[in-house]
């Protein structure tokens, strides 16, 4: 009988076991890599020490002392720290990225669809746009837009007076701003809650838990009513801060800087051309039979595009679209050329200059861009997973 004989794979010496060996090599590689990184960091620190250069992150809480042209949160050159300046730069970068991504997507889709239009003129114009914009370096376009904005707008003395108390000149667009008195934070919170509530309602309506019209009504009520209620409860008074002309400038109100406009315009026009090509590729990837079938069913051309073609083409569009969003965000660092105070301009520029701590500051900035990009990619991947073809 063969009961005593061992079945199963033949015995192999431990070191020749491919699984174990693979694991061992990978562990060794990781250890070596970690060692190398550790060594480089140590060497850099030692070199800084030897050349008597300051290191560490102590500068973060030191007063900044310089002025910034656009601050979304409170900042004063006397009281604020380098850390605060960092957050201002980051918010300004995020502002450009968010506006840019939304507008570039709209431009991209319009042009991309336009390129496939059966209207000769529209198609040629869209094609010309893509070729022109895609083949000129972004920095040049940025400088072009900036000088365009500055030359096209009237100078301060010939400011355009807008109805309702605003001004437009080459220092920017100045509009009346609502002042909320003491109830400011409460009202902002109420706005956020209202928007969140409206989004929840929209989702509920989509799942047919609620009638669409009822949901829309309640949503509008939430968005408008909640802040108003907060204002009344908080005891604030709504006053309008009108911009006023002073000797050289316009004081008060809200202001939109020409640098921001030029930067957004350049990024949107440039990235829009790339998105247009992505969109065109996506639409062309949908088999012709789909649109023919939709038309045969009596759907209009617009409806066919919206309900049949675009949803299917999104599966092709989203992955390259993600790269374009990342490009736009990273390209926003060119802001430094035209004086828009983004993260690179404030932090890797002025703060680095004043503190001289290049290693720390560049490392922080790189980490921030990495984080923004990874976060954008994560969101887009989630969206992609939702849009992906589900095999049933």
């Amino acid at each position, binding site marked *: 009988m063969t009961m005593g004989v061992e079945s199963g794979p033949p015995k192999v010496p431990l070191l020749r076991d491919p699984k174990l060996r693979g694991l061992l090599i990978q562990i*060794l590689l990781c250890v070596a890599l970690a060692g190398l990184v550790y060594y480089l960091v140590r060497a850099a620190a030692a*070199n800084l020490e030897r*050349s008597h250069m300051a290191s560490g992150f102590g500068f973060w809480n030191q007063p900044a*002392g310089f002025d910034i*042209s656009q601050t979304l949160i409170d900042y004063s050159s*006397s009281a604020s720290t380098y850390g605060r300046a960092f957050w201002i730069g980051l918010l300004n970068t995020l502002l450009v990225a968010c506006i840019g991504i939304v507008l570039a997507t709209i431009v991209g889709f319009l042009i991309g669809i336009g390129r496939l239009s059966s209207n000769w003129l529209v198609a040629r114009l869209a094609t010309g746009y893509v070729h022109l914009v895609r083949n000129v370096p972004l920095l040049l376009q940025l*400088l072009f837009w900036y000088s365009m904005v*500055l030359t096209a707008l009237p100078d301060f003395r010939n400011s355009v007076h807008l109805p309702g108390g605003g001004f437009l000149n080459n220092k920017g667009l100045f509009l009346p701003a609502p002042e909320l008195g003491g109830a400011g934070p409460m009202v902002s919170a109420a706005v956020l809650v209202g928007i969140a509530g409206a989004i929840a309602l929209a989702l509920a309506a989509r799942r047919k838990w609620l009638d669409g019209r009822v949901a829309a009504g309640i949503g509008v009520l939430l968005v408008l009513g909640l802040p108003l209620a907060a204002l009344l409860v908080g005891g604030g008074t709504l006053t309008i801060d009108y911009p006023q002309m002073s000797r*050289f400038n316009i004081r008060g109100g809200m202001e939109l800087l020409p640098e921001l406009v030029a930067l957004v315009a350049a990024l949107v026009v440039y990235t829009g051309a790339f998105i247009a090509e992505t969109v065109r590729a996506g639409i062309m990837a949908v088999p012709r039979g789909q649109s023919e079938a939709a038309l045969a069913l009596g759907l209009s051309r617009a409806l066919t595009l919206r309900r049949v073609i675009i949803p299917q083409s999104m599966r092709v569009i989203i992955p390259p679209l993600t790269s374009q969003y990342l490009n736009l965000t990273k390209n926003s660092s060119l802001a430094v050329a035209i*004086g828009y105070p983004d993260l690179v301009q404030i932090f890797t520029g002025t703060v680095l200059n004043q503190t001289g701590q290049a290693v720390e500051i560049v490392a922080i900035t790189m980490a921030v861009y990495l984080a923004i990009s990874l976060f954008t990619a994560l969101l887009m991947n989630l969206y992609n997973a939702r849009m992906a073809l589900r095999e049933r």
Partner: protein
Amino acid sequence: MKRLLTILACASLAMTLATAASASTLDDVKKRGMLNCGANGQLPGFGIPDSQGNWTGLDVDLCRAVAAAVFNDPTKVKFVALTAKDRFTTLQSGDVDVLARNTTWTSSRDSQLGLNATAVNYYDGQGFMVRKDLKVNSALELNDATICVQQGTTTELNLADYFRANKMRLKTVTFLQLEEATSAYESGRCNAFTTDASQLYSVRLKLAKPDDHVVLPEIISKEPLAPFVRHGDDQWFDVVKWVHFAMVNAEELNVTKANVDEQVKSDNPEIKRLLGTEGNYGEQLGLTKDWVRRIVKNVGNYGEVFDRNVGQGSPLKITRGLNALWTKGGLQYAPPIR
């Protein structure tokens, strides 16, 4: 694993050697046969190359004087155009031997950056330029103004300090490059442009209509401009420092490019020590006896260099002011050679 360790050990050894190699900058420069000088590249009067690539300027001539002292040849300099932002890193990393790029001497640059300021070769201060038709006569009238400024200098800090101290409101637009900052000013985006006064004059020259713009009288900061070297190499520090002092001493003793060969025969003991006919002060610095003769013969004394680059002999026509010799009411005062 053993092999890996060996590789690591070799790599670390190589890196240690690489960082320790720059023990003596003077020896390195002599061995290389060339001085690496970090200069401005965009600033007429201080450092700018012409269309043939010939560099001129006050800072440029300081580097040429160092080369003349070391090699007896003012052309043995490789100029590297540096932005305000990358200048310190380039010096720290050893890519240039001297940083002569209208750089303000401050305490933090001396201590925190691991650098040494040698000697002040131009006493400057930050000022403002405005359009004449604004009818502004003083910087104190600039309340609420928008001001264009180039990044990477002490300028932003001085600007904010000045407005704060005088309780004025300020809006700044900060640019990386001088070109963009001045063109934004010219297009009317800003009411005023601020930088060191020396630079204001050269910027004004480059505007479309220089006469429409005026430099305001206020100087809001002390900007002693000095060439910088790396901290920790005292010999090289001495060489660069004394090259400037030699040029100032030469002016004081009326030793010029034209008469230096005559002056060698002078009986004046101070001139004898300066020109190396008495004592061996040049050799003590690691140079030659005739180091000052080489400098003055090839480049000129401080006054000649000043006039040629920024003074009456140049388009800038900046008056000597603070930069006159101490004997003429200025601040240029060099310790004696003895």
